């Protein structure tokens, strides 16, 4: 591994942590939590095997537990020291802590896309951490889980879009509305009980897009179909459709879900 002379100087004058250089939105430099700094200081002078031993502790209640932000700092520190074996061991520990979280977020993707999304998150998180010439990885030393969540959602956007494209289950809402208007059926914004919401969740994947997204936003995240508050995004605004169209989509969703309930041998919800 090539040396980086400006980074290979050992801390002088006591323990001085390597500074963060990235700036937050208010222009101030990122700051590590005091707890993170204390934990780094508690391990930085230990030999590599003791550091690994500490990093392996998973119990947050243990006084020797090291936060993920500390492990990120140590990965960069051992990269600077050119100790690849310790870098590898620390990366493995970090992945044991976070890989199931990432995988869980992609459960509704099919296997192939889920695998691709998982790999993309790992690349997006590790590239800036491993590149010691750059400070793009600073955020992971400050808010690891928040940064990981962010990268997971980014990958999710890409691969869920891909899955939507592949899915044949889509509705042409204009055609649908035309049929609907002929029938003259009343469109209602049905309320769902907490129990119905939990029960319907299992079947969300059978809904075609875009009614699935509309249904999720309406019943699971409290979005309004249309909003009086111009600053509050509504489902109508998001899709650029009339509130009547959105109500129609939701009615369609209810029909599909009730049918599914009956197929499951259960009483359809009201």
């Amino acid at each position, binding site marked *: *591994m*090539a040396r*980086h002379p400006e980074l290979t100087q050992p801390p002088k004058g006591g323990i001085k942590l390597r500074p963060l250089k990235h*700036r*937050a*939105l208010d*222009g*101030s430099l990122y700051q590590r939590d005091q707890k993170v700094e204390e934990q780094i200081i508690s391990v930085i002078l230990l030999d590599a095997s003791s550091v690994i031993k500490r990093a392996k502790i998973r119990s947050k209640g243990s006084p020797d537990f090291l936060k993920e932000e500390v492990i990120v700092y140590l990965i960069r520190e051992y990269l600077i020291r050119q100790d690849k074996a310790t*870098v*590898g061991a620390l*990366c*493995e520990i970090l*992945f*044991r802590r976070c*890989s*199931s979280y*990432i*995988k869980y977020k*992609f*459960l*509704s*993707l099919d296997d192939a896309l*889920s*695998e691709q999304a*998982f*790999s993309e998150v*790992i*690349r997006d998180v*590790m*590239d800036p951490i*491993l*590149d010691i010439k750059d400070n793009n990885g600073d*955020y992971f030393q400050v*808010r690891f889980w*928040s*940064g990981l*969540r*962010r990268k*997971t*959602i*980014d990958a*999710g*956007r890409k691969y*869920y879009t891909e899955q939507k494209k592949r899915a044949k289950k889509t509705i042409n809402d204009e055609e649908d509305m035309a049929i609907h208007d002929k029938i003259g059926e009343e469109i209602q914004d049905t309320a769902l009980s907490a129990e119905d919401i939990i029960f319907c*969740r299992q*079947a*969300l*994947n059978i809904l075609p897009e875009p009614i699935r*997204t509309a249904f*999720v*936003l309406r019943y*699971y*995240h*409290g*979005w309004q179909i249309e909003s009086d*508050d111009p*600053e*509050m*995004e509504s489902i109508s605004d*998001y899709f650029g459709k009339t509130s009547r169209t959105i109500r129609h989509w939701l009615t369609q969703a209810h029909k599909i879900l009730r049918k599914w309930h009956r197929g499951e041998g259960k009483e359809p919800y009201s």
Partner: protein
Amino acid sequence: MNKEIQLEDVLDAYVEATGETPDRIILREWIRRYPKFRRELIEFTVQWSLMETLPPSEGTKAVNEDTLVLRAMSIVSDRLHALDLRDRAEELEISDLLEEIKKAGLKINNLAKQCDLSTAIITKLAKRLIEPTSIPERLIDCLCSLLQKKPENIREYFQGAAGWPLSVRYCAIAPPEPQEERENFFDAIRRERTMDEKQRQLWLSYDTRGTNR
């Protein structure tokens, strides 16, 4: 510090402010703060909402932690290798030939002597005033050996933008302009008066655009 607000930083801070699940009230607040990223914030939140809500896909295979960790470690290994290659390439890259001569522990006149050239020719080469395609391979090899570089690094350096002509330091009336037409290496050798005849003939024997080059 006043810097242009980047979407990446806004989304990082938005996720941090929101916590584990998206919240439309927080979304409204962030749209108010960063209206130019309205669309991005909304798209991001909608995707986040779907990810937090949708059930597992049917028929997906269970993957254990060891498999996930192995997959991730393989990515890290590839990335470290790529960074290693990048660093090595950067180490070999030449930004200033005169600096490289110093780094190699040489003085320009020593290098000139070892290459059977004059200091003036080496300076012209360092300032990229010589037409790169006219430089003989023998000289490239000689520089590689003395500076511990690869031929492609030396060639890349010579192909870079030309510096100021050597004479500009004496012309202060108007701002100097970089030399557009570079001198042919052999013409420079012919014109060079500080080289001895033996050296000159040695290099000119590589001329004729071909036979010995």
